[in-house]
């Protein structure tokens, strides 16, 4: 079904619902309405939430890509996933207090986001090909990069090397976690140094930049991908728009720092719709597996005294079949 078809189909019921609302339903009905319906930030269309979810949280009318959480992203992208370091959480090395203590901000963020910190890492398979994943979540303190983010991403990269699998990092971050001061800044080095080892190991490193990706993440692991993909509509940059406008005393163009703008300026390989991402990453894994001929994953797992997940075993088998399949083309 094309988006237009979808819209045509939904339009009637949608307007009926609006009519109902205009006629003055009581508060309880309104609340139910808010639970079940979503108004698009971009085109203002009211959509059943269920349909938005089924469309990967992309507005089927205008194509606006709503932000999604790390677990949602992982569910959209992977066939199977085992989380690493799920119990890691921030401490307060500077004993930092601004208008509130950092420890309170952390507690609040954990409660609101239901996350321990701003990144989820683990081993997944995409189209039956294993990959080490790190997925940031903007909902946790604006996806800011502190010690936990740095440590978990570094471990994911190191695991990628140990397991001999590619690494994918999906970014969404306002930048460094100021409340951890220099501990935060140093995560840029820690992660990039691990990526230096991944690079020397000849393993594929992919990054997917999503709305928004700024500051220290852009200036470290975010832009070191062998291939860099930006999700449609994402804004990506080092300095923030406002800081630049204040510095140069000049208005910036509307499309400044958008995915398309970055591609025009040579900084991202691919700008993809959310619906295209899984298939394309699957293809990229296939193209880079065939050429590098690496992946003794089940073996690596056994060496690490871990049980080999079924999904991984299946993936191994599929991968070892692949060169022959390719020749049958």
């Amino acid at each position, binding site marked *: 079904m094309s988006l237009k078809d979808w819209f045509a189909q939904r339009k009637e019921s949608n307007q009926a619902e609006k009519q109902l609302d205009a006629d003055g339903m009581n508060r309880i009905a309104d609340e139910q309405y808010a639970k079940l319906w979503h108004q698009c930030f971009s085109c203002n269309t009211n959509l059943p939430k269920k349909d938005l979810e089924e469309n990967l949280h992309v507005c089927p009318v205008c194509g606006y890509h709503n932000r999604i959480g790390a677990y949602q992203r992982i569910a959209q992208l992977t066939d199977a996933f085992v989380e690493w*370091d799920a*119990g*890691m*959480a*921030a*401490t307060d*090395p*500077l004993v*930092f*207090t*601004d*208008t509130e203590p950092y420890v309170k901000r952390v507690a609040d963020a954990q409660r609101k986001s239901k996350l321990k910190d701003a990144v989820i890492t683990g081993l997944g398979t995409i189209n039956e090909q294993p990959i080490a994943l790190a997925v940031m979540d903007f909902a946790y303190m604006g996806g800011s990069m502190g*010690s*936990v983010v*740095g*440590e978990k991403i*570094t471990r994911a990269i190191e695991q990628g090397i140990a397991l001999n699998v590619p690494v994918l990092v999906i970014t969404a971050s306002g930048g*460094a976690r*100021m*409340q*951890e*001061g*220099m*501990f*935060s*800044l*140093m*995560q*840029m*080095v*820690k992660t*990039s*140094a691990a*990526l*230096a080892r991944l*690079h*020397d190991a000849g393993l594929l490193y992919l990054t997917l930049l999503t709305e928004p990706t700024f*500051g*220290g993440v*852009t*200036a*470290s*692991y*975010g*832009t*070191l991908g062998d291939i860099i993909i930006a999700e449609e509509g994402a804004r990506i*940059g*080092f*300095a923030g728009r406002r*800081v*630049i406008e204040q*510095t*140069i005393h*000049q208005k*910036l163009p509307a499309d*400044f*720092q958008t995915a398309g703008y970055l591609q025009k*300026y*040579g*900084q991202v390989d691919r700008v993809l719709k959310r619906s295209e991402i899984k298939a394309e990453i699957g293809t990229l894994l296939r193209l880079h597996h065939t050429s590098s001929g690496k992946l003794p994953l089940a073996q690596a797992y056994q060496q690490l005294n871990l049980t080999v997940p079924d999904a991984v075993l299946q993936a191994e088998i599929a991968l070892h079949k692949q060169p022959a399949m390719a020749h049958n083309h």
Partner: protein
Amino acid sequence: MMMSTPSAVSPEKIQPLDFEKPLIALQKQIEFLANAQNNSEGITNQLQTLQQQAEALRQQVYGNLLPAQRLQIARHPQRPNALEVIQALSPDCWIELHGDRAGADDRAIVGGIIEFEGQPIMVVGTQKGRGMKENLVHNFGMANPEGYRKALRLFEHANKFNMPILTLIDTPGAYPGIEGEQHAIGHAIALNIREMARMNVPIFSVVMGEASSGGALGIGVANHIYMLEHAQYTVISPEGCASILWRSASFATQAAEALKITAQDLTTFGICDAIIPEPQGGGHYDTQATVEAIAKQLKAGLETFKGYTAEALKNQRYDKYRSIGAFTEI
């Protein structure tokens, strides 16, 4: 160790900072009395008292500098800059190397080869100018992507020819301009970080004044990080931090305190490997003494890593950063 006197600021031309002003006033009074050529016992006694007061005040002013005061010293317009330090470290040999080989020679970053203790060393530094004219040339030490690419070219040169690398950092950050974003400032810094991690030669970074954010890191990945006594290294400028977290830049003093950005704090955290002492009041009171202290520390650093293999150097560097972070696990 060869060391020439750099074109230092003469003492009477030093611009005092606000918190130094009571001390300066007292010193002027002492000078006036001393020059009066009146040897009466009263005057002599008064002079002695004043000198004791001055000494006490000096202890008071300099003995417990607040982070925000250190920051003022770190940003002092007369603070020794990269080219002055380079000139003093190696008065007879300075082959400045220019350009990124792709369209620009960003003067916010300077670099080239010096000879130190009979050994060629690649030096790369952010350069703040002396006075407005120079500052415009060097863009106040705020580099564009082209500057980081020039730096990377020089690092790769050093790596190829087995020269140790010394970086001198004093920057408010990378320049936040439209062209910088267009020319991939983020990627330029990221690539430098990754490639510095891969270098086969020892790397020493000296934080000379203020070192801020990714703009500092872009030339800042090292086996040893040294900081001048009053230098500061921070994830974001205190002003920037204050205007975000306190919603007003006027809380910069509180932010400077909270961010724990002094050489002393960062030594505690294991980020700074050694503090290079400064003359009382700051490096600008005696550039030669400051450079001699840098030279001494650099010599010690070179000694430390003498005989390290490329692998050992890379591992030491990896382990240094690998261990930085604060978290709990359940």
